[in-house]
């Protein structure tokens, strides 16, 4: 048999050798041209204009916020002096705001404040809604900017401001007649819009100014972990959805998954060190100047460093309770130590468990699910046993 095997083995080795020589090391691949019409690429001049437009929108919002803070200085002082609970609401812009909309807005803001368990806060929160319309300037680039925050700083240590842009959506949310449109739960949508508008300012209101390490860490990450204050929410966690996964078909959108940083992908795959890296990114930066204003990217999914990062600190606060979270928030210790102490667990492991609440483990690599291996092996064994048993009944016909 051995003699007969030699030419065959030789042939196989020769074929494998030829393939190895031809294709190793990898030779590269010319990317295939997209089928169908391609969107035209903007010219370099157009790209520069678009980049300048982005900068202008952020600068315009910052200037507006600073102007509002100056204009509302007295009102803020009065609001603080009277000890009224709740944020100070100001409706800016040139258009008149219908009284019914104003009432709806105030009621919704009070509800959100109450839901967050906040009363009279040490840090005053000022909510400015620019009622003017979709664009801040009629002769500037179109497309509205997003929310802008101004945090307490050396000039005003007691105020956190948020400027929420107006436009069609807020007008629709606050239209009194919208209640007749029974297709959507407008009340909940209104609260969610306001809650996301409050963003990090709600954390400031609830827990005060964060300690230096936490502030540096959050500033380095654009406060991405504190965008959605919802620490008193009841009910189960919403499953992970667009753009990463379709809960209906239970399939992952791999293009979107791979657009996340590697640490975020490995965290979804259940690797604690990946989760730790994703959460603590930015904590090792050196001393930074304080972050006074923040204009987050409206298309937040493009900048995620951790899946569902916007609710991370809210969920931490909900789980550990206000006292432990307050100790973490104000802690002078390094972030990883303070957070692990608050969680009473390593950061990476807790984050893995947190992600499992709303997303199944992301399958990476080629490892099959253990259950599939067990069932497959069992099936193979059953098949062979069945054949062995039935063979004994075989006869020559």
């Amino acid at each position: 048999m051995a003699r007969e095997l030699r030419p065959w083995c030789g042939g196989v080795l020769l074929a494998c050798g030829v393939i190895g020589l031809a294709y190793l090391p990898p030779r590269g691949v010319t990317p295939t041209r997209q089928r169908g019409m391609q969107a035209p690429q903007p010219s370099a001049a157009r790209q520069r204009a678009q980049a300048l437009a982005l900068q202008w929108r952020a600068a315009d919002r910052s200037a507006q916020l600073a102007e509002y803070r100056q204009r509302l200085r007295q009102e803020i002082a009065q609001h603080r002096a009277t000890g009224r609970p709740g944020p100070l609401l100001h409706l800016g812009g040139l258009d008149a705001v219908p009284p019914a909309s104003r009432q709806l807005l105030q009621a919704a803001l009070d509800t959100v404040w109450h839901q967050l368990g906040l009363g009279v806060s040490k840090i005053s929160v000022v909510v400015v809604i620019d009622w003017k319309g979709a664009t801040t300037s009629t002769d500037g680039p179109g497309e509205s900017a997003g929310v802008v925050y101004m945090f307490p700083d050396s000039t005003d240590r007691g105020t956190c401001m948020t400027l929420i842009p107006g436009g069609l959506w807020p007008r629709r949310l606050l239209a009194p007649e919208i209640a007749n449109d029974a297709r959507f739960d407008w009340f909940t949508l209104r609260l969610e819009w306001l809650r996301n508008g409050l963003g990090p300012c709600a954390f400031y209101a609830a827990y005060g100014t964060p300690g230096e390490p936490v502030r540096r860490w959050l500033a380095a990450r654009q406060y991405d972990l504190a965008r959605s204050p919802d620490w008193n929410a009841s009910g189960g966690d919403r499953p992970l959805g667009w753009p990463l996964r379709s809960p209906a078909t239970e399939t992952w959108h791999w293009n979107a998954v791979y657009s996340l940083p590697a640490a975020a992908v490995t965290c979804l795959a259940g690797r604690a060190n990946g989760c730790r890296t994703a959460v603590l990114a930015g904590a090792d930066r050196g001393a930074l100047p304080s972050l006074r204003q923040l204009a987050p990217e409206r298309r937040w999914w493009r900048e995620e460093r951790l899946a569902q990062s916007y609710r991370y600190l809210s969920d931490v606060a909900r789980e550990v309770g206000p006292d432990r979270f307050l100790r973490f928030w104000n802690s002078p210790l390094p972030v990883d130590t303070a957070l692990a102490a608050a969680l009473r667990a390593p950061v990476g492991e807790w984050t893995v468990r947190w992600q499992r609440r709303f997303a199944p483990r992301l399958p990476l690599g080629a490892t099959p699910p253990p259950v599939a291996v067990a069932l497959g092996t069992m099936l193979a064994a059953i098949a062979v046993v069945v054949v062995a048993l039935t063979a004994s009944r075989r006869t020559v016909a």
Partner: protein
Amino acid sequence: MFEGRRLLVAFWVASTPLLRGQSLERGPASSDTLAEPTRLRMRADSLLREWRRANTVADVVDSIDRARAWAASETMSVGSLRIVANPSPLPLHDAAARVWRVLDSLYGDEARHFERRPLFVVAVDPDTTVARPVVRGGLMVTWDLDADTLALLLLANLHPLDVDPALVAWLGGSLRPTVHPERQRARVYVELVTTPWAVARDCFLQNLEHCGLALDLTRLDESPESWLQNPAERRVVVSRFLSSLSRGAQARAFHDCTNNNDSACVVFLRSIPREAVPRPLTSEARKTLVDVALQLGGRDAYHRLVANPDSPMAARLAKAAGVRIDSVIARWRAVIVASRPASVALPPWGLWIAITWTVCFAACALRSSRWRVN
């Protein structure tokens, strides 16, 4: 001092790194609070001026690019249709002639407006190894397309003439040329025959008044229950299609309606927006009615159709056709009934194909060693 501050702002703007997507305002630790808004506003204004300059340059660059891309192109005219394309083997003239015939039959004299809407076509080599030009704007097609396919592509990419919102709302879209009118009419025939709505079935059974109801030619102030002929239909429509509206003030009426209270169904239907109620016939049926009206009315029919956007739809169609609306509906019904699709029948060559394959497989089976005697 003011000049110094401007210089400082200019220097700061020039040295600010390009930020992508978000901005961090990392200001100095202490600053004059009164001057800060001014400083920030000056920075924003400076960026706006810079953007305006850059936008102007970008517009110029884009127009030069466009002109360069279309420099070697030729303009073809067929009727009022204008097509700008690069020289290539594409059968553009044939396709354009077919497209123009369709446009002219639909829009009549109004088709002259297409002179102002040239179509830009870039014909490229079907060989995928050949680099394709970068073109901003225009329809890119491979030049191995046949005239029929190209004509369909041109029709699909032509921007139709603008019509008033009332017509768009009634039609369920803009008024586009129909590519396969006979297939469309056959589908409407099937719809009439298989519809669950009594009013549409009555239309098939020659009740022209109910045809008008089924085609939504009722007045806007009339409630949609006029086309729901009996309590069972009203209950089915409300419970199956309108359950999402059963909140707030309508919840009680919805509940009563689903429990066989017809008065509650009527109250519910009158309380919701008219456009929320599903119509008995689809937009295809209404499109075929428009086609019939335009054919009856001749070349000026389209012009008369769009002339009075405030008139009721029935009046507009009658004016377009030049006859009473009853006659238009009668003609429409006759056209639809005559468009009955062919039933599934065995094609003449089907039988021979089946016999051939049977013989083939039988021959293969008989060749098996099982049947051969050694």
